[in-house]
């Protein structure tokens, strides 16, 4: 190769060297800074359309309820945290069974109970309870005083039935009453994250102890229920997947219990009564069973319950025509309690009767006095008192028989009778009770 040609080749080579070096540097830098590629994940592919929400069925349940006479008292004097509308399903079933319903308490415009504007709410509650055959205490937000608890305990002693309902989603102080009967609503709520009705707080309950309350029920749903403990057996048991929000360990919980004397039922959930939850699965059937429980008690009345041991239609029998004024006063007194009455001349042994008489007329009602161990001779003798001077005294007797009730008022003078009627009207007569059925009074 000639020298000029070689020189030319070198020049071209040098000329090409510039881009080659630039490219080499570029590539070197590129592979230094960008050592590998990014392996991007595939675009999102999430099948949201697969999300479905299975719902529990609404079971149909029809019944022909048995009719009973009586009255359910619903407590509303403790600023209870529910509205009448929320328990309408239960109230309807109570009414279907012939019971009257008395909801005692004052409500605000939204239906919630407010503090009672009454000088003595205790007296109001006590008076209402005297009439009642059963009592429902739902979510009281003010505690029951020990006097009130005493009253309810005495109500149960006389055969009354009590329904206690708590709910973890609302404030309540139901244990102030429940503990009196060996029942305790536990803190927290029950939940099941494996199987539930729409939400983990809505638990299925499928295990039940055979009882009137659980008759015909295979599964119910409670909507955020608490657990209830009782000295008696549980009525409903949770399964192994149900847990408590406040307990670490897994155990069987009882959303519904009944005391061993069968008089108190306690349920940890109120909202299962609220439509449409009341009709899910066997909830409606459970509500019917609760209504049966509340309307089939055998409430026993005593003299202190005057006048509620008397029926709606009462005869007033006078031992003497001189007592006609007292007879009309007694009629007015009963009318004040919405009891129809009439003064009669002879006893009808099929009717509830109020007898007004003087001691000298005691032989007319000897059968009632003797049965109750009372003798009216020179003095007044009862099984509960020493001999009493008849002068300035009076006696009341409540005689209960299977078919009718007789209320006897005896006194030494017409004035004594009037005095005792006044005491009945003012409720002061209870201070003279010497037993559940007999009262003895000084009548100046």
């Amino acid at each position, binding site marked *: 190769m000639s020298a000029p040609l070689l020189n030319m080749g*070198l020049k071209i080579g040098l000329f090409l060297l510039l881009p080659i070096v630039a490219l080499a540097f570029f590539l070197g830098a590129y592979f230094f800074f960008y050592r590998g590629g990014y392996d991007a*994940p595939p675009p999102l592919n999430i099948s949201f359309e697969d999300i479905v929400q299975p719902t529990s069925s609404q079971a149909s349940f029809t019944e022909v309820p048995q009719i009973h006479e009586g009255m359910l008292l619903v407590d509303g004097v403790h600023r209870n945290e529910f509205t009448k509308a929320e328990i309408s399903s239960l109230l309807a079933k109570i009414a279907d069974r012939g019971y009257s319903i008395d909801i005692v308490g004052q409500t605000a415009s939204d239906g919630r109970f407010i503090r009672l504007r009454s000088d003595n709410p205790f007296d109001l509650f006590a008076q209402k309870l005297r009439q009642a055959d059963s009592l429902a205490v739902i979510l009281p937000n003010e505690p029951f005083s020990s006097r009130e608890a005493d009253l309810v305990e005495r109500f149960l002693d006389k055969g009354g039935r009590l329904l206690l309902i708590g709910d973890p989603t609302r404030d309540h102080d139901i244990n102030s009453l429940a503990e009196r009967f060996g029942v305790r609503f536990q803190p927290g709520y029950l939940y099941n994250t494996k199987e539930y009705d729409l939400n983990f707080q809505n638990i299925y309950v499928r295990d039940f102890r055979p009882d009137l309350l659980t008759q015909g029920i295979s599964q119910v749903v409670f909507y955020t229920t608490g657990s209830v403990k009782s000295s008696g057996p549980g009525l409903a048991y949770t399964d192994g997947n149900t847990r408590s929000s406040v307990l670490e360990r897994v155990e069987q919980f009882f959303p519904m219990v009944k005391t061993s004397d069968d008089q108190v039922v306690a349920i940890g959930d109120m909202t299962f009564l609220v439509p449409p939850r009341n009709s899910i699965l066997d909830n409606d059937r459970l509500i019917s069973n609760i209504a049966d429980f509340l309307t089939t008690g055998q409430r026993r009345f005593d003299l202190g319950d005057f006048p509620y041991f008397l029926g709606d239609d009462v005869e007033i029998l006078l031992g003497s025509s001189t007592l006609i004024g007292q007879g009309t006063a007694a009629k007015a007194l009963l009318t004040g309690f919405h009891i129809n009455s009439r003064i009669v001349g002879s006893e009808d042994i099929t009717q509830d009767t109020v007898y007004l008489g003087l001691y000298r007329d005691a032989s007319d009602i000897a059968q009632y006095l003797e049965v109750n161990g009372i003798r009216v001779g020179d003095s007044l003798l009862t099984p509960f008192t020493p001999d009493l001077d008849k002068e300035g005294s009076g006696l009341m007797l409540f005689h209960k028989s299977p078919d009718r009730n007789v209320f006897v008022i005896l006194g030494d003078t017409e004035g004594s009778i009037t005095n005792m009627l006044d005491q009945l009207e003012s409720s002061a007569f209870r201070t003279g009770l010497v037993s559940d059925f007999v009262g003895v009074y000084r009548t100046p």
Partner: protein
Amino acid sequence: MSRLAPLGRLASKWYISTSIIIGLGIILGSMVFFNVWPGKPKIGIINIPFTVITDRSAFEIASLLEYARLEDSIAAVVITINSPGGGAAASEELFFETAKLREKKPVVVVMNDLVASGGYMMALGANFIYAKPSSFIGGIGVILSPVPAFIPRPPNERDVLTGPFKAEGGDRRHYVSLTDQLKQAFAQLVSTQRGDLLTKPLSEVTQGQIFSGIEGVRLGLVDAIGGRTDAIEKAASLAGVSGYDLEDINTEVSRIFNQKRERARGSSGSDEALTQSFPSRIKGQGERNGFGLFQEDVNSNLLGTLALPGGIGEDPNTALPNFPLKINGPNAYYLYVGPSP
């Protein structure tokens, strides 16, 4: 000319001229690489200090994510998060935006004190998640509030509605059902993003619990324990880059905004033009302590009080002052409301 002759003679020597040309080649290659394409790689850093996710904060965060996605010089993104979550749709928006960014460049999340619920949902969109040992993470679940009362309100004789649920959208039970659907959707996201990594059944980690970062790793809800530097190195590794620079995306987006703001001010003399060009961003002032696109040089109070054309974003109760029914429908939240570390 004679004075340059020695230089010419020097250049005529092949080894000298070769060296010059190589040097020029390096300069040329360097200029092209660093100034034309592709440039020195950058790891973008997005910092989300404690933020409750709302429509506004989600918009701002999405703007940062969008910048990171569109800016070619950013090879990977590291997001530091501290959030208890927030609105459901806003949280989902951030999940989708993060996942969209991940399709183009790797995203690594670093969890700070608290990354729960909607915050965790956003993190699910990343390629890799770091947590601190003491981070509070998880809180997977939904809150719907307020739902209708047990007893629906009775109809008002002055209002005519065309269906039993027109006023409230459904009864309480319907909303309970709806809440469960949202929970299932959230669980579905966890399943698709973390499914193979989870060490416990999905149902056990989607009960709303808060876990420590340590437990989160054990459960497979996060990938590793680590901090910001770990995340940067991981992001670089996923992107396959080295010798990278870091870019503070919050500051960069803020700078761009301020430039445009000044330009708009210069042409119109007021902030009004800016409200036209950046309506949503102007609304999107930081939720807490000046967080957000706009930093201290922005008179955020002034901008925040300007009325927006067309009433965009107006409160429904203000927008319809004479509407007789109370506007208070249920809102869904992916939000953790418990104690923080």
